[in-house]
């Protein structure tokens, strides 16, 4: 999937010679550079370059929060480093052609796709967690409803047995109702616990600053 996006980038922008997708710790996820090159060192240096610019900003008291792109132009090659997700970046190595402006918009959607694939930021992770927990709560509610209706049915049967309208063991029915009652109270406790966990996660997400990292805001 990521490889497909890379080939689409290269097709949309033929002047792109190489693509490097790397994390802030220097790990390269994918690159079009051949294996004969020292790929780990390439990642390490790209990460260091980012880190140096960050330090430069810190010295000048500028905010480096959510950098968008870094452009380096030399005579033959231009390098553009774009921020992808929370901790991921993409470096595009262009062959420089005179009087030709780079049209990064042409590759915008591929890069957004890559970002979605290789790096989810913490906020999105929490949202994902909330959704999963809400799904669990929904399932627990369904289970609870089932059990409550079973209790109701058993209660009706018990009443009939006691009145002699139906044959059956009233003790067994009472025990089943009691067991189901315990299960219901446990389910209610679980629902309460999960709901409070959801509240904590929601509070956590509210505390987090709104950090737009998506590429669509970069271009």
């Amino acid at each position, binding site marked *: *999937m*990521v*490889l497909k996006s890379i080939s689409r980038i290269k097709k949309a922008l033929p002047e792109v010679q190489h693509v490097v997708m790397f*994390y*802030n*710790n220097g*790990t*390269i*996820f*994918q*690159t079009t550079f051949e*294996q004969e090159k*020292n*790929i*780990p*060192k390439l*990642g390490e240096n790209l990460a260091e370059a980012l880190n140096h610019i960050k330090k430069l900003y810190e010295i000048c008291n500028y905010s480096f929060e959510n950098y968008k792109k870094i452009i380096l132009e030399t005579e033959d090659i231009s390098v553009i480093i774009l921020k992808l*997700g*929370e*901790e*991921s970046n993409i470096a595009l190595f262009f062959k420089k052609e005179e009087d030709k402006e780079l049209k990064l918009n042409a590759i915008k959607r591929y890069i957004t796709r890559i970002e979605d*694939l*290789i*790096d*989810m*930021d*913490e906020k*999105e*992770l929490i949202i*994902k*967690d909330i959704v*999963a927990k809400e799904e669990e709560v929904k399932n627990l509610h369904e289970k609870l409803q089932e059990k409550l209706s079973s209790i109701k049915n058993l209660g009706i049967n018990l009443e009939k047995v006691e009145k002699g309208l139906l044959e059956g063991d009233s003790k067994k029915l009472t025990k089943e109702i009691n*067991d189901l009652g*315990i*299960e219901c109270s*446990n389910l209610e406790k679980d629902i309460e*616990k999960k709901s409070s966990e959801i509240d904590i996660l929601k509070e956590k997400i509210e505390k987090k600053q709104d950090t737009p990292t998506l590429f669509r805001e970069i271009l």
Partner: protein
Amino acid sequence: MSRAISALIGATITFFVLTFIEHYDFAIIIDLTFGTKEDSYNNFHSLILIISMMIIVTIANEAGLFQFIAIKLIKLSKGHPIYLLIISSLIIVFIAAILNNLLAVIICIPLTITVSRILNINPSPYILTQAVIVNLGASFFIISSIPNILIANYAEISFINFFLNVGLISLIILGFTLAFFIFLYKDDLLIPKEGIPILMEFDVWNLVQNKKLMYQTIISLSILILLFILIPPIILSLDAIALVIALILIIISGLNGKELIQKIDFELIFYLIGIFIITGALEILGVLEIIGIYLGNMLSVNVVFQIIIILWFSAGLSASVDNIPITKVLIPIIGAISKNNPSLYRNYYYYSLAIGSNWGDNLTPLGDNILVLNLAEQHKRPISFNLFFKLGFITTIFQLAIISLIFILIFEFIIGITITSALIFVIFLFYILYTYGSNRIKLKFKSISTNFRNIIIK
């Protein structure tokens, strides 16, 4: 202040005390640093082994060997959370056994976070498991940690004996610990929906700087382990084998020797020298022997009781103080406690010390393991200090309890088998009740186990 500087200041004060108050000759400082003919130059052998292993480890790290193996194995999990938890834990233990705890953490934690980003999963359960379990790797081989090297050189324990008596026990405990973590996290590990094909696209060769160097390192490490096992220390000591392999690796790799030497952790070497001098002085002045005899009398004559006390005592001390000076101080004390026992028993005192000093670190997150919290924070996946503390403490107590039981089984078989049978019976009883009991009992068990898990991991 750097620990090396503190140790060297202590060593300098020791030197002045020895020469001006105790009237020792200057040569004493050389004896304390490198050892004497009588103790077979223990300290010198330890220093050479540590430096040689540092060189080999630096080259292996340069080649990207361990990162390559780690991602290659993680891909085998195909994103299945339980397999991922098991594989990532085994990887960090294996790397810690060959390199050391700190390097294992530095290599594995960022990789785990990267994999979690690809799989879109919460890395906390994996990071916490790795952070706690990494200490087990430190007790696999003699070369796995500095306390092991110091202990083995002093007690003349061979590589294979150490592995059979400490490494294998660590392997058993690893199994128990992994089962414990799977029980704790089984409900929190979600199967990733989208990231698995992306993980499979991760090109592992991107982690390798130089294929040739990687193969050379694999061959060298294999030969090293093989020679450690095959050659008895009387014929060739471990440090000599490691030094030869390190030098051969430098020559065949063609790496810049100057750059390589710069990467050696000289801070650690100076720290060790300082510790050697301070503890050596305490030893020649008879302080450690007095403590040893006093403790030996106090702990009665029961071997297993003494061994278990050493285990818990060294673990407790390592929780708050660095395990290198603790080990160096405790070695002669243990020598004094165990000297009246047969040699077969005597080594168990040292095995117990090796386990306690390596594993005790996790009782508090104040030692080297704090690095895990920093790394997680740096990679924007912070983990809770309290959670880390709780998990580390409970797991270490659990591990030390099992080890104590193993020692009881070895020395007091009847008592050991009685305790083990009782435990197995209780577990079996719980299992029967849980499987065949009424709904009420099943629910009660479920609620107890959920509450227990929540207390530890929430």
